[in-house]
């Protein structure tokens, strides 16, 4: 080996080490600034992290596009769901008067809301597009309680970083960061195009996160947990945790 190539080898090695250290520092700084998604791990971490960081830098306070009333889809498409569980059928038979939404975790006052409780809270509406990761979309008017208002009622603690929400249908859940949780368009919806939210669209209660794709708008929610970290199983999965794109 001649001296030139040895020098080249050493400088390449040093550059690689410096690059790796630089990347690690950048990742720590980004995490500190709230620009890193919860660790999902694996081959797609660089792409998913870049997307999340870029969109968090650019869209922290932006509003999802809202449409005019005459742009509402005449026949909004209910994405097929798994069959109704026995518990769901029992609650449906009682007109959902026994449906409960439990909110707990890093909060001062864990609370449980009935549908009537939620409907008595100040409601917000938005006419937004539900975009499925498959490529289809429709526009509807969604009405419900802002998640931020519920988080205020229960007194979410300052160390809260994510809000996780769970469906009555086993295995359906979702989670969002506090930017989306406190976002004014993020609603716990109970009303769809002016009527009770139907089963096909996630009734009686659906989390609606209009700046992310449809799979973050989890149907049939009955449980919300405020947390400072997510369990690996809540982050991992077939689909990217962050779905702003």
């Amino acid at each position: 080996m001649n001296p030139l190539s040895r020098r080249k080898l050493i400088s390449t090695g040093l550059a690689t080490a410096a690059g790796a250290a630089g990347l690690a520092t950048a990742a720590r700084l980004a995490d500190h600034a709230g620009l890193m998604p919860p660790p999902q791990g694996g081959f797609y971490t660089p792409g998913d992290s870049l997307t999340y960081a870029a969109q968090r830098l650019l869209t922290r306070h932006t509003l999802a596009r809202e449409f005019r009333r005459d742009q509402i889809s005449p026949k909004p498409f209910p994405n097929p769901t798994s069959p109704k569980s026995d518990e769901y059928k029992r609650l449906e038979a009682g007109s959902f008067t026994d449906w409960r939404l439990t909110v707990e975790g890093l909060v001062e006052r864990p609370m449980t809301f009935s549908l009537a409780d939620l409907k008595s809270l100040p409601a917000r509406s938005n006419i937004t597009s539900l975009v499925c990761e498959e490529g289809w979309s429709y526009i509807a008017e969604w009405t419900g309680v802002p998640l931020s208002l519920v988080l205020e009622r229960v007194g979410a603690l300052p160390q809260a970083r994510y809000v996780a929400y769970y469906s009555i249908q086993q295995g359906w859940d979702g989670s969002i960061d506090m930017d989306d949780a406190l976002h004014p368009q993020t609603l716990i919806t109970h009303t769809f195009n002016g009527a009770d939210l139907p089963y096909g669209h996630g009734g009686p209660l659906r989390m609606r996160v209009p700046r992310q794709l449809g799979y973050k708008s989890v149907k049939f929610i009955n449980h919300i947990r405020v947390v400072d970290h997510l369990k690996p199983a809540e982050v991992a999965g077939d689909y990217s945790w962050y779905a702003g794109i």
Partner: protein
Amino acid sequence: MADSAVSPTLRHPAFVRVTHWVTVLAFAALVLSGVEILISHPRFYWGDTGHSGMPALFQLPIPASRGHVPTGFKTVLPDQNGWSRSLHFEAAWLVVFAGVVYGFVGLASRHFQRQLVPAAADLRGSALSRALLAHLRFAKPEADYNVLQRLAYLSVIFVAFPLMIWTGLAMSPAIVSLFPSAMAVFGGHQSARTLHFFGFGLLMLFLVAHVAMVIRAGFRQRVVAMITGVR
């Protein structure tokens, strides 16, 4: 050796070679993952909305990976959207990085002016038709980029790729929340998706023509030139 000694400017510069192969890798991943995403809903629409309960603008004669899509096929293909979407965006980042490096170095080194922008004389009707006729007769490509080649490269680099990124981002609800009008310019989410698909078609046409011309010009020599730089 004689070639490069005589005309060192004819070598592919290192930044072209590196960004070319990075783009090849990313493009392959984008095509593979894009097709996988596409088969979850191989129907196209125009405007803001479109779904299985609506008539399609057109649809591809293939089965879908979702049962609710009215394809006319009984087969439902396996759902591959999870990794496909992640791979698609990771590869898109790679293309963006390659494109930024290529754009900056290309401008700073005057590569675009020297190698890609055609001479004014070559853009006259007679010169263009001469080049077109030579091309249609499968004349062996010259050492220097001819006018058609320059126009093809320029339109792929500065029109097709940016439009693919733009129409792609126009499908992101978060990006639409940032630039509503820049995204609505296509006519809505579904229009952007349909244009993204047409852009894919155009890039595939370019790929076929590009590889065909490389083969015509001497595949081995051209590929080695794009790796080592020696033309």
